[in-house]
């Protein structure tokens, strides 16, 4: 029988797929508990209003209603507000303004979708009926939704304690050095950009079930979370004051997250608290339209970027000023996104010697904004890569040559940027060359001419990028304002017969951890892939963990597994030395065998496991029985994946319709465990990037109503919007983790939007376009073409 290679580097088919393709997944809404009740939230339909009174009497009397709660009930029980996990300090050293974020609105509503009343009934329909009977008397207040309105001099205030609607006014870098460099620059190129607000729209809407066992006093929360331990910590410690040993949080199969399921949401606290109050399970499942106004949104930045260059096109200094719209309240990681997850990436792949960035974060009467796939890095990458093409356009330097001239060279690593980060490895020339070749950049002129013969405008765009992920070194992020550590935890349980269960604090919601981690552990321990199972998503089973986001699972969680396996192997060597009557120093472990060096005397991994659990012949005086180890791994640095994306578009000038005709990515994500899964992650990220660039836009009107509040108006990428996506990899290894891995979850969403937009601007270059904000919809493109045609006609 031929052994199938299932180790590191093999495109092993996924373990999790059988249940998903058979309809046997277990998502939160698939679960029901005996005696379960149903929660519906009466949410604000006003962007901004004073709550004068809430009349719940009719709702309480409605058929099937079990309970109706307002903030007063939560207050009476001492329930806390939704906490924020990151504190930023302003330029002047003052801490950010951190307004109360009540679980149910108290006194005022601040965005459409703000939850006000919790209605719990025997059925969901009964709860919906009762919700219609709740009467809330509001006095409307003026609202601000757009950044320009929120920062206007006499703008209405979202929070009385936040003058100017400012949450913080932060900066990073050497302002004086940047100013000096600008003063002596040969060229200065300036660009204003917007990064459009997005709605994450994981296909599974959020859901939560709270339960309470009066005998043990234990609460259970089943929730659609990327990080159940983080939810237990935040909700237990700050909101409900439940000690952690009495609070179990389960995150079962979760249907996509993209950041939106990191955060602790009010609904989780309500179902858990209400279950204790009512001594009955409480279930809440979000409708999609409700998700649009209650899931944290992404992006929404306005920036001005300026580059100073010498006469040869070398970058001298970069100056960036950003206003970030954080919405009505601070979501869990919101303050970190425009600052330490974005401004720190402004060096990009370039050796810009000095950089100064300032970020003003503001409140508005909109849904809170937090990390969405890429989180901060897509914003800085879009800014830089659009600026690069604009510099090329303004100075006449070829856009590829401009990049090459300013790349951090491959021999300059480790490379300290002027914006806090130290890149450990990378080779930007190689990924660029590889992508240009794969995309046939050289042959583009011919394709453009051919397209022109068909009446189409064809454009090509490139983006070269680096990102920081593998989140994160705890000491560093602690110094930057994180209120939690960001290490990861792995527990490896070797069973008596040599099979292995791995308990990980990361969480898989599409990433295929059950497969990738099993490959990793199987290959390191020399056991068959089928003999390794991965457990995640249950705080009662897993020691601890920080979850999955920031492309951290393999780089941080996988490295924790390696550390735990190192302990297993070290212990195994001691057992083997005893059995083989050799010195521990002489035992080598490879391919699943403990061998006395230089001999053929060996014990298999299975024999060692059995001995550990049946210690009849065992060094019992010096070694405990059993074979199970736990490791906490705190990374020494971020990881720095990077690469090059090339996009080719065709525009129908008559209608403005745009089609992505080719997309080529060559990324450096470090060592690849499962190429099939890595390609899938990158393709999915690119699809979201193309979505941001061409389709998706969370549009608020000036009054604060979300206009694109359903799939009828929010353009989700569909199969016919997207091209085939060619993905390649070029590898440099991460130098500070045992596996050399960097992370692949976000690169697609980070590198792709500017490649698309550079292609759009290139396609429209004959129409005098210098920049275009996302999304490049047919209407916007037509307006550009039409305005230009009008001008041409007038000339």
């Amino acid at each position, binding site marked *: 029988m031929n052994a199938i290679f299932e180790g590191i580097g093999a495109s092993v088919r996924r373990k999790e797929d059988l249940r998903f*393709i058979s309809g*046997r997944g277990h998502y939160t809404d698939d679960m029901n508990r005996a005696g379960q009740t149903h929660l519906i939230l009466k949410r604000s339909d006003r962007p901004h209003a004073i709550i004068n009174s809430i009349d719940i009497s009719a709702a309480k009397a409605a058929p099937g209603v079990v309970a109706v709660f307002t903030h007063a009930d939560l207050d009476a029980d001492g329930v806390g507000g939704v906490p924020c996990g990151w504190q930023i300090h302003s330029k002047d050293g003052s801490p950010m303004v951190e307004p109360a974020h009540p679980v149910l609105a108290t006194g005022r509503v601040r965005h459409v979708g703000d939850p006000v009343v919790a209605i719990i009934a025997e059925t969901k329909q009964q709860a919906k009926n009762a919700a219609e009977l709740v009467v809330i008397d509001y006095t409307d207040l003026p609202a601000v939704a757009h950044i320009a309105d929120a920062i206007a001099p006499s703008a209405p205030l979202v929070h009385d304690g936040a003058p100017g609607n400012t949450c913080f006014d932060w900066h990073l870098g050497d302002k004086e050095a940047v100013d000096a460099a600008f003063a002596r620059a040969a060229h200065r190129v300036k660009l204003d950009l917007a990064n459009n607000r997005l709605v994450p729209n994981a296909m599974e809407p959020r859901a939560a079930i709270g339960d309470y066992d009066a005998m043990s006093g234990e609460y259970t929360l089943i929730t659609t979370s990327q990080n159940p331990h983080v939810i237990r910590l935040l909700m237990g410690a700050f909101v409900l004051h439940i000690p952690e040993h009495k609070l179990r949080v389960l995150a079962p199969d979760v*249907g996509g997250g993209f950041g939106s399921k990191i955060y602790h949401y009010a609904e989780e606290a309500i179902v858990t608290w209400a279950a204790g109050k009512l001594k009955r399970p409480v279930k809440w499942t979000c409708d*999609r339209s409700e998700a649009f106004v209650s899931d944290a949104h992404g992006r929404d930045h306005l920036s001005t970027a300026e580059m100073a260059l010498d006469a040869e096109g070398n970058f001298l200094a970069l100056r960036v000023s950003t206003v970030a719209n954080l919405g009505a309240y601070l979501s869990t990681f919101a303050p970190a996104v425009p600052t330490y997850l974005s401004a720190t990436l402004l060096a990009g792949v370039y050796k810009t010697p000095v950089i100064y960035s300032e970020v003003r974060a503001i409140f508005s009467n909109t849904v809170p904004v937090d990390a969405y796939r890429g989180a901060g890095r897509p914003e800085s990458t879009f800014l830089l890569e659009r600026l690069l093409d604009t510099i090329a356009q303004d100075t006449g330097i070829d856009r590829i040559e401009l990049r090459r001239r300013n790349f951090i060279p491959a021999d300059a690593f480790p490379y300290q940027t002027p914006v806090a980060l130290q890149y450990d490895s990378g080779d930007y020339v190689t990924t660029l060359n590889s992508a240009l070749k794969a995309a046939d950049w050289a042959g583009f002129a011919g394709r453009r001419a051919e397209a022109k013969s068909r009446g189409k405008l064809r454009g090509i765009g490139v983006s070269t990028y680096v990102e920081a992920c593998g989140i994160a070194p705890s000491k560093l992020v602690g110094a930057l304002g994180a209120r939690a550590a960001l290490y990861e935890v792995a527990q490896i349980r070797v069973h008596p017969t040599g099979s292995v269960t791995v308990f990980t604090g990361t969480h898989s919601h*599409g990433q295929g951890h059950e497969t990738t981690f099993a490959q990793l552990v199987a290959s390191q321990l020399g056991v068959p892939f089928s003999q390794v199972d991965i457990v995640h998503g249950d705080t009662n089973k897993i020691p601890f963990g920080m979850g999955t986001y920031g492309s951290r699972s393999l780089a941080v969680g996988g490295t924790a597994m390696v550390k735990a396996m190192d302990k297993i192997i070290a212990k195994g060597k001691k057992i083997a030395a005893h059995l083989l009557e050799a010195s521990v120093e002489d035992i080598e472990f490879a391919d699943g065998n403990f061998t006395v060096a230089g001999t053929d005397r060996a014990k298999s991994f299975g024999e060692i496991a059995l001995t550990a659990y049946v210690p009849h012949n065992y060094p019992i005086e010096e070694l405990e029985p059993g074979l199970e180890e736990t490791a906490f791994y705190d990374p020494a640095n971020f990881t720095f994946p990077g690469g090059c994306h090339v996009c080719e578009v065709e525009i129908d000038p008559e209608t403005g319709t745009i089609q992505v005709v080719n997309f080529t990515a060559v990324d450096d994500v470090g060592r690849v465990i499962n190429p099939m899964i890595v390609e*899938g992650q990158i*393709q999915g990220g690119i699809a979201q990037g193309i979505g941001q660039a061409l389709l998706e836009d969370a549009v608020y009107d000036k009054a604060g109503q979300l206009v694109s509040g359903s799939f009828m108006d929010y353009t989700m990428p*569909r199969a016919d919007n997207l091209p085939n996506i060619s993905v390649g990899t070029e590898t440099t290894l991460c130098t500070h983790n045992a596996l050399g891995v960097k992370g692949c979850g976000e690169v697609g969403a980070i590198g792709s939007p500017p490649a698309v937009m550079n292609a759009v601007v290139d396609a429209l270059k004959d129409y005098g376009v210098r920049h275009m904000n996302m999304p490049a919809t047919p209407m916007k493109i037509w307006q550009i073409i039409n305005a230009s045609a009008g001008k041409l006609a007038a000339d």
Partner: protein
Amino acid sequence: MPQVTLTVNGKTHTVEVEGRTLLVELLREKLGLTGTHVGCDTSQCGACTVMMNGTSVKSCTTLALQADGASVMTIEGLAAADGTLHPMQEAFREHHALQCGFCTPGMVMSAVDLVQSHPQGLSEADIRHGLEGNLCRCTGYHNIVKAVAAAWPVMHGKQPVAAE
């Protein structure tokens, strides 16, 4: 309360429902067939797609009572009785056409109908257009399109196409 009698995955059920009960609610809540998912409330996402009398329909946009007398197949009924996967299920696994798995049941059911109803063949453009009624947020559709193309010859008795 009205009753509906229908066959689901080969088994006949008679169930009490309300007028407003949706087919997807009947399947998930009354019959425990939770493989059929609900991903939106505007009939756009297709996560709830099932086969009804041989063609794909959105079970969130069909009243349970409209399915009276109908034969419904859900993702749970797609594999053979002995557990042998349907070629489309195999193709999805082989080509990594799913990540989080939430859209997958509806996507697979749509894809089965698309292939069945196009015995003359399916181009890549046909597949992309044919899956217009199903949203996936994870894969970028690239591998879904590959899987559907690979399942076509198998379902039509032609030589299977090897994965890359």
